[in-house]
């Protein structure tokens, strides 16, 4: 057994720095590269892409990335875990296999595919058997939005990825696997942690939580002494150095910017936290109140003491459904009395929308530069502000009404308060809202399958 393995984070979300994974692979020694591509909304976009083209529905950026880094990954035996498969892991794997063959890697690597998270086709079967998939937040049964569902995926844990790694996969491609599982799986695989070794599974899960948002653990978006954090232009993404006993060090490659420190890790630990005693994943329940952090030198933080509890009997399900339409329009008002003018414009706009008889579930106004982020906590708007942006959003079930709203913004320039600009972008776009429905399903209902392909 190895005494230490290094797992590097290469993407904090779909749309993160494109060259970050390349820099992780080339900037120093690592054993694994984990890449998180999926957010709730992503699944529904991918589902639509697959409906149009059966060969689509995965994170397309992943394929050119593999073209760039696969030769080095094979040469250095760096293994990749990625939830880039979206709603179509086999198609993603086929595209990566094509690239690998073009690179002359035939016979030198395998691709693992995790299947079984997509339950879109089974929804009616579940509902008919009394598995209601109630909304975890609101308690509503799924039947209330059944006709609008666009995708439905179970969050799978680390175990199927472990199986793929055991099968020799150089690259493991999953659909909706948890972000934390992408980091935990290599640790289980390398150190042989048992499926009921809750403390170690919790430790690997927390390691995954720390690096799953990329540079947000290594100096990005860090409030603590932010002005002093060096060279964010060249920010190093975080790396876990895991040990068999479940302790680990968070660090980053030498010569990169950013900072790994106890405060930077604390900020990431509390990010999107619920009840810290129970951080629930498919693999275990981790206790964030047991985490001990220790400064272990420059850009090194040691993490230990982590306790875990048994996993629950449920998987979390991520369901997306259409929930109407929205649009947001903006205009910029200048000194003097920028805020007062923006407010007057908002009142004029609302009066016109009402006269037109448009129906919206919500009209929401913000004054950027005055109260958009902190509301009333920001205090009385400054009368002398150089400019204020009026930002009005509407939401409704009738597309035509939302469309009509988008045509009422620009006319304010010639028919409202003076000193206004910022309409050059044209009319706002109407967006279809794809909303997120969290639910639980008994694990016994879900069967996962792992395939390992020779390239």
């Amino acid at each position: 057994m190895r005494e230490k393995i290094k797992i590097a984070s290469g993407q904090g979300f779909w749309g993160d720095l494109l060259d970050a994974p390349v820099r992780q692979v080339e900037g120093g020694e690592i054993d694994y590269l984990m890449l998180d591509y999926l957010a709730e909304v992503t699944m529904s976009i991918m589902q639509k892409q697959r409906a149009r083209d059966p060969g689509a529905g995965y994170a397309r950026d992943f394929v050119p990335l593999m073209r760039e880094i696969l030769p080095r990954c094979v040469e250095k035996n760096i293994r990749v875990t990625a939830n880039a498969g979206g709603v179509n892991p086999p198609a993603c794997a086929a595209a990566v296999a094509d690239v690998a063959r073009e690179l002359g890697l035939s016979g030198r690597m395998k691709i693992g595919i995790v299947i079984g998270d997509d339950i879109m086709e089974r929804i009616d079967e579940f509902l008919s058997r009394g598995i209601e998939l109630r909304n975890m937040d609101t308690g509503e049964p799924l039947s209330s939005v059944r006709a609008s569902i666009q995708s439905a995926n179970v969050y799978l844990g680390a175990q199927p990825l472990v199986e793929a790694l055991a099968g020799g996969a150089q690259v493991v491609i999953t659909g909706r696997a948890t972000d934390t599982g992408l980091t935990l799986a290599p640790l289980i695989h390398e150190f042989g942690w048992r499926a009921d070794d809750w403390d170690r599974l919790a430790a690997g899960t927390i390691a995954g939580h720390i690096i799953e948002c990329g540079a947000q653990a290594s100096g990005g978006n860090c409030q603590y002494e932010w002005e002093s954090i060096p060279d964010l232009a060249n920010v190093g993404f975080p790396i876990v150095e895991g040990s068999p006993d479940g302790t680990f060090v968070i660090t980053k490659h030498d010569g990169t910017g950013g900072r790994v420190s106890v405060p930077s890790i604390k900020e990431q630990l509390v990010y999107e936290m619920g009840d810290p005693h129970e951080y629930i994943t498919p693999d275990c329940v981790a206790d964030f109140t047991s985490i001990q952090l220790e400064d272990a030198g420059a850009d090194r933080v040691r993490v230990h003491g982590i306790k875990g509890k048994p996993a629950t009997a449920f998987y979390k399900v991520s369901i997306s459904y259409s929930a109407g339409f929205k649009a947001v329009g903006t205009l910029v008002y200048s000194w003097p009395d920028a805020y007062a003018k923006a407010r007057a414009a908002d009142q004029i706009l609302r009066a016109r929308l009402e006269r037109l008889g448009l129906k919206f579930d919500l009209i929401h106004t913000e004054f950027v530069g005055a109260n958009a982020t902190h509301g009333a906590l920001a205090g009385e708007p400054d009368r002398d502000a150089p400019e204020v942006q009026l930002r009005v959003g509407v939401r409704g079930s009738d597309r035509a009404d939302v469309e009509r709203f988008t045509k009422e913004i620009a006319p304010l320039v010639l028919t409202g308060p003076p000193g206004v600009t910022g309409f050059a972008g044209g009319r706002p776009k109407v967006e279809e809202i794809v909303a997120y429905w969290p639910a639980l399903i008994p694990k016994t209902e879900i069967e996962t399958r792992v395939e390992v392909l020779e390239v």
Partner: protein
Amino acid sequence: MNDVARWENEGGAVIKLDTRRQKSLSTMKVQLVKLAHARSGDKGDTANVGLIALRDEFYPLLVSEVTAERVKHHFEGICKGTVERFELPNIKALNFLLHESLGGGGTLSLMTDAQGKTLSTALLRMVIEIGDDEARSLGLQ
């Protein structure tokens, strides 16, 4: 470990906010930005704000002064639901869950900050009162 505040704005029960410790006669006001750093995020229509003591010695002050009730009051008009508080003495941090704070949350929200990312700094605007003696011993004067 976990106290829940329900703050009824319209015609509901009024909760007494003054549950703080006995103060020395002379006090000073300190804004949380001098005592803590923070990060916030979202889960649906709930925002979480993690509040971390800038120095370990400040943590007891955060525990006693930054109660769920006070946070609910601070976010009046922003947080329309309940506020839950959790303590993490191991990393000298408090975690707050601000329910019904993101205009429906996720893609439903029309807010600039639909993910509640800036509620972290919004909490740092809060002002607490500290006894002069305590402030002196913490090096705040």
